[in-house]
């Protein structure tokens, strides 16, 4: 089963230009007191230039570790072992020296984290956060850097940027702070932005503003986006393609619309059914998923969702399903749901 989830389906491979990102059989293993923990266990992805990919999963599914491994923040070092390949615009991220890696950050790939307050240095003004990176990467002088910082603040929609630039992080609201963090990530015009739960700490009205901002920036700057979230709703309207992760693996990936309307993996289906729908009448019984996610230091054999899956049969425990499927809609399941929409050979249910 080591190889099973690793195959990149030919339908996904772009025919023309070089992909922005190729992730091939990526594994991130963390040594813990309780033994090796396979946080990411054989993930393969391709992201085209300018494309937006959503990665959804519950806590512990490995989605954040995947994002950080793509960035090169996790590499074979200390308790962490990374195998497999991450090719960022053709560059093998895991093979880079630390110094080359820092050059890559900012110019090729930028990252936005969940908590904007801890991502900012409380004793530095907003402007310093922005000028630091552009001076280092672009060799601008002080005045030029400040101009660039103001430009960036305007770009991310911070009103009154000339005043804000000299304020400290604590003087800004959560939404404004997240805009500053996004401005930092954009300072050197990365071709790929990885946003890990960028709106989770924010209120719903502010969340919409930040998601709108990411949409606009993607359109204006033509960058690719990986949006990592536990919230399926956040990802639904904002990405071209979605990958659902469970216990360190991608269990289903498809274009956003078919994944949300015609999920084939029982986990994806169950996850959608568990969210209350605003348009349904109140007091509807929710379709909860029994049990809890597996302990990743001792994951179950075969399909990892099998112990919680209501369709599970003997073969699910025996053989891990391969991520495969027709027309770019891939799923790792022996007994897919919504099989009516599948071509005959897989439509077994």
């Amino acid at each position, binding site marked *: 089963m080591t190889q099973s989830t690793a195959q990149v389906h030919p339908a996904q491979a772009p025919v023309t230009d070089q992909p922005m990102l190729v992730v091939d059989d990526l594994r991130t293993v963390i040594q813990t007191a309780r033994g090796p923990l396979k946080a990411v266990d054989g993930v393969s992805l391709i992201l085209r230039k300018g494309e937006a990919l959503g990665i959804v999963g*519950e*806590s512990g599914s490995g989605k954040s570790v995947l994002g950080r491994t793509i960035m090169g923040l996790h590499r074979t070092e200390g308790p962490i072992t990374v195998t497999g390949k991450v090719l960022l615009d053709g560059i093998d991220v895991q093979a880079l020296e630390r110094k080359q890696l820092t050059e890559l950050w900012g110019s090729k790939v930028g990252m936005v984290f969940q908590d904007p307050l801890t991502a900012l240095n409380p004793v530095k003004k907003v402007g310093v956060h922005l000028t630091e990176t552009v001076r280092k990467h672009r060799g601008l002088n002080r005045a030029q850097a400040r101009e660039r910082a103001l430009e960036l603040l305007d770009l991310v*929609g911070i*009103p009154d940027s000339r005043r804000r630039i000299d304020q400290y992080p604590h003087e800004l*609201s959560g*939404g*404004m702070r997240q805009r500053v963090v996004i401005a930092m990530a954009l300072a050197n015009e990365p071709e790929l932005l990885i946003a890990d739960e960028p709106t989770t700490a924010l*209120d*719903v*009205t502010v*969340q*919409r*503003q930040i*998601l*709108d901002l990411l*949409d606009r920036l993607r359109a204006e700057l033509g960058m690719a986006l990986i949006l990592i979230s*536990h*919230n*399926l*709703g*956040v*990802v*639904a*309207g*904002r990405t071209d393609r979605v990958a659902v992760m469970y216990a360190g693996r991608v269990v289903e990936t498809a274009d956003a*619309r078919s994944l*949300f*309307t*015609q999920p084939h993996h029982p986990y994806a289906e*169950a*996850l*959608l059914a*568990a*969210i*209350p*729908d*605003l*348009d*349904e*009448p*109140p*007091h*509807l*019984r*929710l*379709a*909860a*998923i*029994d049990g*809890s*996610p597996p302990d990743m230091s001792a994951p179950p054999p075969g399909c990892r969702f099998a112990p919680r899956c209501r369709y599970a049969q003997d073969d699910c425990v025996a053989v891990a399903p391969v991520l495969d499927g027709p027309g770019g809609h891939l799923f790792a399941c022996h007994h897919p749901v919504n099989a009516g929409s599948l071509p005959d050979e897989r439509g077994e249910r």
Partner: protein
Amino acid sequence: MAGSGSMHLRPEDERVLSVEELVVEFPAKGGQTVHAVSGISFDLVEGETLGILGESGCGKSSAGRAIMQLPPPTSGQVRLGGEPLTGVGGEKLRQARSQMQMIFQDPVSSLNPRRKVKDLVAEGPRIWGRQVSDDKIREVLDAVGLNPDVVWDRRPHELSGGQCQRVCIARALMLDPRVLICDEPVSSLDVSVQAQILNLLEDTKARYDLSMVFIAHDIAVVKNISDRIMVMYLGKVCEVVPSGRLAKEAVHPYTRLLLESVPTAHLDADQQEQGVPSALSAELPSPLDPPSGCRFRTRCPLATELCAEREPELRPAGDGHYVACHHAEVVAQRPPVATGLVEAGA
């Protein structure tokens, strides 16, 4: 009275819990005052679930805690089954409090990490000096979906977040409360576990004849569990609406903004890409110095001079539906889906 008023209150003899003119203020530095809750009223009838919905800083948690007198409100009346809780102290308050139990957001940190599940569950009655039989503990653990044989001797760190929340609910049930106050009980849980706990709360409420106040920021969650929803903004009530009518019939501009902001995963197959209207960029005003008149006016596309001068009072907007907005009629005429309100007003 501003975004307050008391028109939506039910006859006094039907109320289990009644809160009138509740004000919660906290001192801030420089002699300033945080106006967390500013004169709101609400009630709860037997067997009802009242959802309190709002974003951070709207005062929903302060209101929930003020019911429990944690801390006592700055002013206003709280009555449980006709008995006043405000202004009474000591033993009488202690007696009354056991009839109301609270469930908090972070289940792990609300449990003493050094105690075992069996002792955590029995703690309430033991404090009251009551004998607690193992059978009773088992019965309650069973009722919250925990296997007593498995969790009996476990400590909180050996349980998942969802299981800890079940223990918290079991603790609350041991005292046979009348009212359960849940403050963001599922917001720290994963979607799949969240559904389990929401189902459990519905079951528990029916089985133990409880009335419930459910405080949360997630609109779909609040809608699903509540009978009636009170929407709060900056310490005031915007709208009180039966939950079945929230999505289509809400008329307060703030409620509509919330509804329009919710990202949904429930896409229809034939639906076009989500029409996401441009959001209002204005910031939430400071609760140190809230706007005059209607507190939402600084972000409201329909605001007029009237809104700055006079605070809107809750007035009827349909059966069991009340709204505190001078321009609710304008909103009511717009289509209930997205775009209309924000774009036209901006």
